[in-house]
């Protein structure tokens, strides 16, 4: 087998790390498009969810009162989960994400759910931000079981070291 045909060894494997701060529908599409696409072409992929990005990985995809305090519960109910993410522009009271999903389906472009499932199937590493979870009164059990770990900045920097990092 010539050098061109040789598979990547672990040390040669490229790495992409994404920081998902946004809880917007369109930005979540961008996160999971990059994550699944990179994993499909053999990158190691890490996604670090912080602040509004935590809504994307909640176990309950709809609106739920989560957290202990009144404000935690109100915030988490109003923000909702993956099925309540608003479009960053022209949201029209929450109608637009559904319309956009329909347009994506009709044009054979993967929907947010399909990209999310593809990312899980390809072994994308998902992490939650410890500090943001604390602010919003969320625990690891509030998230999907595929969340690999709860991290702080230093641990995320260690994970992303040596690869490309994007903030969304």
């Amino acid at each position, binding site marked *: *087998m010539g050098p*061109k*045909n*040789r*598979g*990547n060894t672990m040390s040669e494997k490229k790495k992409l790390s994404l920081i998902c701060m946004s809880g917007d529908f369109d930005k979540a599409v961008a996160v999971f*498009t990059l994550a*699944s*696409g990179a*994993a*499909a*072409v*053999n990158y190691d992929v890490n996604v670090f969810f912080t602040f509004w990005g935590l809504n994307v990985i909640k176990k309950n995809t709809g609106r739920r009162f989560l957290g202990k305090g009144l404000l935690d519960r109100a915030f988490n109910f109003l923000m909702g989960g993956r099925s309540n993410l608003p479009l960053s522009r022209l949201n029209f009271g929450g109608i637009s994400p559904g319309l956009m999903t329909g347009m994506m389906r009709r*044009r*054979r*472009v*993967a929907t947010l759910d*399909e*990209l999310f499932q*593809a990312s899980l*199937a*390809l072994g994308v590493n998902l992490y939650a931000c410890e500090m943001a979870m604390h602010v919003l009164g969320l625990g690891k059990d509030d998230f999907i079981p595929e969340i690999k770990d709860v991290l702080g900045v230093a641990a995320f920097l260690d994970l992303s070291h040596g690869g490309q990092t994007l903030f969304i």
Partner: protein
Amino acid sequence: MSQTHLDITRDRCPMTFVKTKLELEKLQPGDTLEVLLTEGEPLNNVPKTAIEQGFAVMENVYVRDNVHRLVIRKPEGATP
């Protein structure tokens, strides 16, 4: 040894790569995957990334209207 088939001619980025990768992961050494794909990004990148991952592209044939047929094989001796 078996051959599986995948048609990604109607899919768009990144599902072209995603579907191919998921099928390639199922192959045993000696198995082949036949992929129908369109010219442009899928044809430029699917064979390239398959080779990068240690697979061999046995055939790359123009079929019709911008559609190509690839045959990708998992080499004997590769990790199952």
